[in-house]
């Protein structure tokens, strides 16, 4: 079967099953007051948080500058709006990092625990439909929460400083976060028999993906003593949706601000990098943005084609800040699309692995040390 026919056939085979699983799961999840209460609690939490952040930012603005209408209040208002928006995105990222894996980590393992998976497996429904149907219906609940928060986020338009496309970027990243970490939970749910263990493992994995890998980057960055040393790969941050949200926040800042500084450091837009040159160019200051016009000869060119903007000449070496042509500090979408793509690829990988693990007659079985395979006390060989 070629890839194209596979692409056409898989959805047609899997769709009825996905619908069946989806209807069943959503009937259970959305029954009664549960869904209503959880959405309400979520929105109230988000709104309360946004209000408090707004209060903090307003009082900071008053304390720093004095409440003086003459002192360009629109600029201050915009800065408060940006602060609330960024805080909301970070808060929701945190909540999704907890809620998405928590709602998927029990989906498959609970079927095993309740011994209902066999009943499903003998129907013509495919493993793809079981896994994808369960993942989608679990995510539907998280999606409902995310969507319900949009009106709260839209309140930042009152302050200004945030454009609708910024909100779209932030929410796109939130959805990607939910899908990726939901798929992670589904994977562990199909790998481990007990829901408790699946949930535990999932959150360990979430911690490693976010805090762990990021800390490795920080460690490598901080312990590299030489300015000539290679920067740690930014890919270590791809699984950390907070960094992606920092890039979204940088886009809101427009010009270089604190969040842009974070992304500059992560992507190496500012590279402490030595480049040997024959005719060193010297520019002072950091004021200029964008590519500078430099002569064809003696251009300080970074290995990736960037140019030096400002720096000092140390003998034949310029220690300065190198900008890649398409990655200028303060530029939009320098980083988060790469992170989003990585997370989506990971989601596909984990989902495929979960499908493989759910298939009853799969030939490939992972063997964890110390855990005998497919043994249940008293009934395996009956």
């Amino acid at each position, binding site marked *: 079967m070629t890839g194209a026919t596979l692409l056409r056939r898989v959805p047609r085979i899997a769709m009825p099953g996905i619908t069946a699983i989806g209807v069943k799961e959503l009937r259970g999840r959305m029954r009664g007051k549960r869904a209503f209460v959880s959405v309400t609690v979520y929105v109230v939490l988000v709104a309360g948080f946004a209000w408090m952040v707004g209060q903090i930012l307003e009082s900071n603005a008053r304390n720093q500058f004095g409440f003086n209408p003459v002192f360009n209040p629109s600029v201050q208002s915009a800065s408060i709006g940006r602060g609330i928006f960024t805080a909301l995105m970070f808060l929701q990222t945190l909540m999704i990092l907890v809620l998405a894996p928590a709602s998927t980590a029990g989906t498959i393992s609970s079927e095993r625990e309740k011994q209902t998976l*066999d009943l499903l497996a*003998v129907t013509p429904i495919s493993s793809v439909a079981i896994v994808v149907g369960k993942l989608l219906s679990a995510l539907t609940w998280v999606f409902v929460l995310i969507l319900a928060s949009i009106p709260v986020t839209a309140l930042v338009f009152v302050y200004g400083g945030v454009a609708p496309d910024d909100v779209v970027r932030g929410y796109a990243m939130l959805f990607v976060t939910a899908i990726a970490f939901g798929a992670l939970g589904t994977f562990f749910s199909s790998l481990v028999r007990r829901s408790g263990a699946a949930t535990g493992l999932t959150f360990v994995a979430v911690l490693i993906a976010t805090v762990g890998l990021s800390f490795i980057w920080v460690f490598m960055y901080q312990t590299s003593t030489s300015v000539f040393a290679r920067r740690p790969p930014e890919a270590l941050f791809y699984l950390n949706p907070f960094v992606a949200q920092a890039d979204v926040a940088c886009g809101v800042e427009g010009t270089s601000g604190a969040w842009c500084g974070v992304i500059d450091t992560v992507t190496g837009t500012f590279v402490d990098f030595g480049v040997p040159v024959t005719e060193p160019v010297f520019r002072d200051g950091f004021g200029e943005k964008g590519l500078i016009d430099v002569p064809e000869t003696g251009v300080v060119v970074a290995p990736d084609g960037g140019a030096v903007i400002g720096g000092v000449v140390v003998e034949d070496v310029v220690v300065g800040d190198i900008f890649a042509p398409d990655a200028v500090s303060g530029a939009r979408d320098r980083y988060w699309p790469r992170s989003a793509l990585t997370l989506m690829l990971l989601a596909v990988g984990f989902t495929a692995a979960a499908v493989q693990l759910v298939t009853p007659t799969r030939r490939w079985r992972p063997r964890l040390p110390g855990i005998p395979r497919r043994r249940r006390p*008293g009934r*395996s060989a009956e």
Partner: protein
Amino acid sequence: MTAIVRADGLVKRYDRTLAVAGVDLDVAEGEIFGLVGPNGAGKTTTLRILATLLEPTAGDAEVAGFSVRRNPNEVRRVLGFMPDVFGVYDDMRVWEYLDFFGRCYGLTAASRKRIIGDLLELVDLGDKRTAYVQGLSRGMQQRLCLAHALVHDPAVLLLDEPASGLDPRARVELRELLRELRVLGKTIVISSHILPELEELCTSVAIVDRGRVLASGRIADIEQRLRVGAVLRVRVLAEGEALEAARDWFAGQPDVAAAVILPDGTVELGFRGDEAGAAALLRAAVAADIPIATFSRAASDLEELFLQVTGQDDPVPGEEAAA
């Protein structure tokens, strides 16, 4: 009659255990076929291979002409499976449960509605339509599970220990239900470790132990072939010496291997004869003026039967390893 379920040298090996060691089966269309054997004999494994839930290590099986190895999806469409241990979903009503499985088989909304009504009628759960599944009694859940295995009108039903955990009344109801299904033309393969349970129901059985089929065919034939006596329980309206005299009389009869008085006063007989022989024995006892209140064949547990046949008193080695 053609074979609708066939197994050809099925082997299933777990890490160190050989759960199924070359099982051959031949089930004709319309039969109620019993798979009998002690715990750990390989019954569940065999059924799970037939249900495409396990891949055989070697050998193959066919259901309605489809190979479980090569065409598992076609097999799934023609068979209904009820596992020995099964759970129910929380938060689901009875009709939703059946509706869900109807969707899994790709039935249209209209046909689902009709079939759910029919099935609930068939398994006598018509008034439980909107009840929650987890609130049903064990027997009702068992019947619901049977109904779920029937939503797609399969030609073959595989039932793994369907009567386990049921009270006697629910057992009788289940038996009636299975007879009804047989009338509807279903072929039923049913496993049990209790021979009498199947005796009244099955048209033929296969006796399995340690992963092998020891015998298969009609039950009476197998019993005869295995030369295993039945245990007869006779309640004699007598006490003391009169009772002992009755026992001695029984012990003296042909085909009676042993006669003992149980603590409750019942006389238990090891009997080698067939049913006609039992009738003759009863006639003779009545003629001999022994006051008999009840005269019945005791339920012969298969494990006991096997121990008799193989002369082993220690547990079957495969069982422990398999458990």
